[in-house]
């Protein structure tokens, strides 16, 4: 029994972990790049002293809500044609990264928007009053003031992505979560289940602690 578990783990665990990392990393990068930009855009277009624009804000906000309202497991399936178009295949961790990225971008955009919204209005007003161009306000005020909160947002997105990546098995994405389902659940390999769950818990704890540490470093 134990030997069987160990041999299964030896055979699949490393590969599954690598797949999880691949999926999470790709979608996290997408969230950081596009999600942050989208979140910033949402904030800028709703703030009077910056570039308030109700129409653009509603369009961007509506798009984010659209993606966020589709359950991830359905998004995985709905986006299959698009996935094929982008990565040429619908199977494997790379393919699963496409819907995961969509989900991550929308999720992270809302977190980023709320991080910027926490900035003291007075600080924004005083920086606008200096006559600084918007680009300078974004880089030297908004990102500086929201830094701890943005780091926490990244941590939350990362942890959520690790969770979502477990569902990637549906489209043959693999990963730690898939390993747990395939062996731990369908084949009653409780040992595999226990080990994968422990591994996920450890990874998430590690990500959270690291994220908190970095965020606190930026608190002044």
């Amino acid at each position, binding site marked *: 029994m134990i030997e069987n578990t160990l041999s299964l783990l030896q055979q699949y665990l490393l590969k599954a972990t690598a797949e999880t990392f691949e999926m999470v990393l790709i979608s996290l990068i997408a969230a950081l790049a596009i999600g942050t930009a989208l979140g910033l855009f949402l904030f800028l277009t709703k703030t009077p002293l910056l570039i308030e624009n109700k129409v653009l804000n509603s369009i961007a906000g509506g798009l984010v809500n659209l993606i966020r309202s589709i359950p991830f497991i359905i998004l995985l399936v709905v986006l299959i044609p698009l996935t094929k178009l982008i990565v040429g295949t619908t199977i494997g961790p790379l393919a699963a990264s496409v819907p995961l990225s969509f989900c991550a971008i929308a999720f992270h955009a809302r977190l980023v928007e709320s991080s910027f919204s926490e900035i003291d209005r007075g*600080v924004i007003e005083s920086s606008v009053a*200096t006559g600084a161009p918007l680009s300078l306000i974004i880089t030297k005020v908004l990102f500086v003031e929201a830094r701890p909160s943005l780091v926490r947002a990244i941590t939350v997105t990362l942890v959520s992505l690790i969770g979502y990546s477990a569902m990637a098995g549906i489209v043959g994405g693999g990963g730690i979560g898939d390993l747990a389902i395939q062996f731990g659940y369908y084949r009653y390999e409780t040992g595999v289940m226990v080990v994968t769950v422990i591994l996920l818990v450890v990874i998430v704890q590690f990500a959270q602690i690291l994220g908190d540490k970095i965020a606190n470093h930026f608190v*002044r």
Partner: protein
Amino acid sequence: MQRNNQEVKTPLISLNSIDVTFPLPSGPAIHAVSDVNLTIQKGEIFGIVGLSGAGKSTLARVINLLQKPTKGSVEINGVPVTHYTGAKREKLRQNIGMIFQHFNLISGSSVAKNIEFNLRASGYDTEKIQGRVTELLSLVGLSDRSHAYPSQLSGGQKQRVAIARALANNPEILICDEATSALDPETTNEIVGILRSINQEFHITIVFITHQMEVAKKLFDRIAVMDAGHIVEINDTYTLFTEPKHICSQRLVERIIDVEIPEELVVKDGEVLLKITYTGQKAYNPIIATVVRLFAIDLSIVNGQIEYINGKPIGVLVVLISGDQEKRALALQYLQENTSKIEVIQKEQLV
């Protein structure tokens, strides 16, 4: 102590028929500023006072277009700027420094970086930024705190950083929005002193919004009183304090110049309770001693106060005069002629 007498008066800021309304999704719009006409001269310290909600902060924000007026026009140095947007508006704002009640420093940046932000905002020569930051910090006496973060500073220090930052680009105008309202009296005096000295040294025009009449008394050359969106009175500081015309001005001035009359005081027959106000040169005359000597009446001082505004005194004295009818009348007449104002206080008024 009269400050700007050596300068020829030139209008720097003109606000013409300014209206600011805030539409509400439900119900009527809020009329924050109504039909304000105001000219502020180059080099003066101009105060806008009023209770909270009077619209003074909104009005101040019209000057640097943080608040676009619904109606009316803003002129700076005779140039209409109301319609400015984009780069033109940025340029205008670089010429108008602003400090706030809650300082509004960038909390995640050091003191030096906060000042640097304003210099970068105007595209200041990168190589000269460090030198300018050092210069500004020494101007406000904070040379040793350049690496500190705002949270490590006291309120007064934060406001000094804010002043240094606001002066970074040598603006012509400095707007102070309740800049001393979050500070204790001692620190308030310190900031008032700094503002006065930069006004004298750099001839920077200061527009100061406040509800603190202590600050008005010490700092302003001229004062506009605002009530419910309107400017109800404009006058030089001394005149406003000595002869406030509008009820709203009178209430504000009373906070500084007011004498209490003890409730226990009973005015008996043959006595008269008098409130004497004297201003200017008259404040120095030995009026009380003279009146007692001349008319052989008894006079006891119930309460009194002397304030100095722009170096000129204003005094209020409450006295109880007793003596026979005729002498009292003569004394009253003498006081009437030799002081600015006398009021006989009726007993009913005491309650």
